[in-house]
């Protein structure tokens, strides 16, 4: 059985979307995670809850409100219009923003955990070795927390790939711009084209599984390295 051109387009678009989203997630998720890991502010719980909200809200609800907010009369829409960007729904970048919002907790939490696990000692050590805060981040935090960043990247990527309800709502199902694999599978199912649906789903399941397997295997190596000098009298 062969994939149709539409299917290939959907796969290509999905990979492009997921890569873009992952990159942006890492860029904005890292400072948030950093702040959450280090702060003693009483806002911490509040911000954590806010970041985690998308875990809980049904994607269609999120999509519905994002559609309104990003529309010409919504706050976001008026902002983007005043910036000369037009409105975002039905564009690739609209999808990117919605997906970033939706997958944020999947990226922030592993990075936060990894940074918390470093503790503040390595950073103090680096400071005594004349490393500026910026330098400390790149020479200490990033390399030590690498597995956390990797988990974050893979989860963010994979979750964007599987993202559906929001994409449907914000995307408008535009081929090559917003019609991603999950929507394509959905369309196949709705159109009773079950063979194609099965085929695409199988590809997706295998992809997800091996992505996950690889991070968990990597993480295990890391953990066992740390644990090796655990037991003490």
């Amino acid at each position, binding site marked *: 059985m062969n994939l149709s051109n539409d299917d290939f387009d959907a796969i290509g678009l999905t990979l492009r979307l997921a890569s873009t989203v992952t990159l942006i997630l890492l860029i904005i998720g890292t400072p948030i995670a950093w702040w959450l890991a280090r702060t003693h502010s009483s806002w911490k719980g509040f911000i954590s809850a806010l970041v985690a909200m998308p875990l809980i809200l049904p994607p269609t609800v999120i999509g*519905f409100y994002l*559609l309104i907010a990003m*529309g*010409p009369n919504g706050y976001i829409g008026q902002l983007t219009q005043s910036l000369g960007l037009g409105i975002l*729904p*039905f564009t690739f970048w609209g999808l990117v923003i919605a997906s970033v919002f939706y997958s944020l907790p999947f990226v922030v939490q592993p990075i936060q955990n990894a940074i918390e696990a470093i503790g503040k000692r390595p950073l103090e050590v680096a400071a005594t070795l004349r490393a500026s805060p910026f330098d400390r981040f790149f020479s200490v935090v990033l390399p030590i927390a690498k597995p956390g960043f990797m988990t974050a990247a893979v989860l963010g990527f994979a979750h964007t790939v599987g993202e559906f309800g929001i994409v*449907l709502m914000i995307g*408008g*199902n535009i081929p090559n711009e917003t019609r991603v694999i999950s929507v394509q599978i959905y369309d196949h199912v709705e159109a*009773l084209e079950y063979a194609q649906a099965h085929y695409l789903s199988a590809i997706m399941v295998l992809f997800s599984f091996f992505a996950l397997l690889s991070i968990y295997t990597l993480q295990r190596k890391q953990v066992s390295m740390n644990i090796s000098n655990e037991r003490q009298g």
Partner: protein
Amino acid sequence: HGQTVKVAVASNFIAPMKHIIREFKKENGHHISTAYGSSGKFYAQIKNGAPFDVFLSADQHKIQTLENEHLIVTGTRFTYAIGTLALWSNNTQFQPVNLAILTNNKFDKLALANPKIAPYGQAALDVINSLNLSTASAKKWVQGENIAQTYQFISSGNAEVGFVALSQVMQQRQNTPHSVFIIPKQLYRPILQDAALLSRGQNNQAALDFLAFIRSDKVTAIIESYGYHQPQNISLSESHQ
């Protein structure tokens, strides 16, 4: 009496269905339980043992497929409503709405339901093709999963204009005659919404009563008041495929 009928209803028919249920309950002691959703999903569910007695689909194709698979009671398939397609805009700059808007091609986004999975989308495509606009406008299409989503695209202002069901715009009071344009029938193949008695409702008196009720004049009037019309002159077996 006192039996229960479980009805699967296409989402686009929610509003008239709620009205019909109220009337149905007044007339007899049956209990009625309705599930709303997309016809494609109902098809998958019925194939996998869903406990529905009656299926009010949004199209004809799914009911026919079920018939071929012997999942409905033979001879019970009929068209309960014919949808009316409307062009709608929530943006005053595009009002009064008429076909010239389409041919002028001045809009940014044109909303329609996904033709592949939604009958109103198929009808919208017919209109576009009839007007020979498909190449000019294809890049501006935004497709909703169903007409409800299509409606949201327009009502939120993200698409300036789009094809919706007349039944939808009639429900919303704020719509003026200026904002709606009823598409001439000759521009698209009729949107036939079929219903049928499912195999598991075969011996359910409530199901039989409900199907009979749907076809009563009273209900016909209700359905029409929501912007649909009835297949007075169209034979049951008429097919468009």
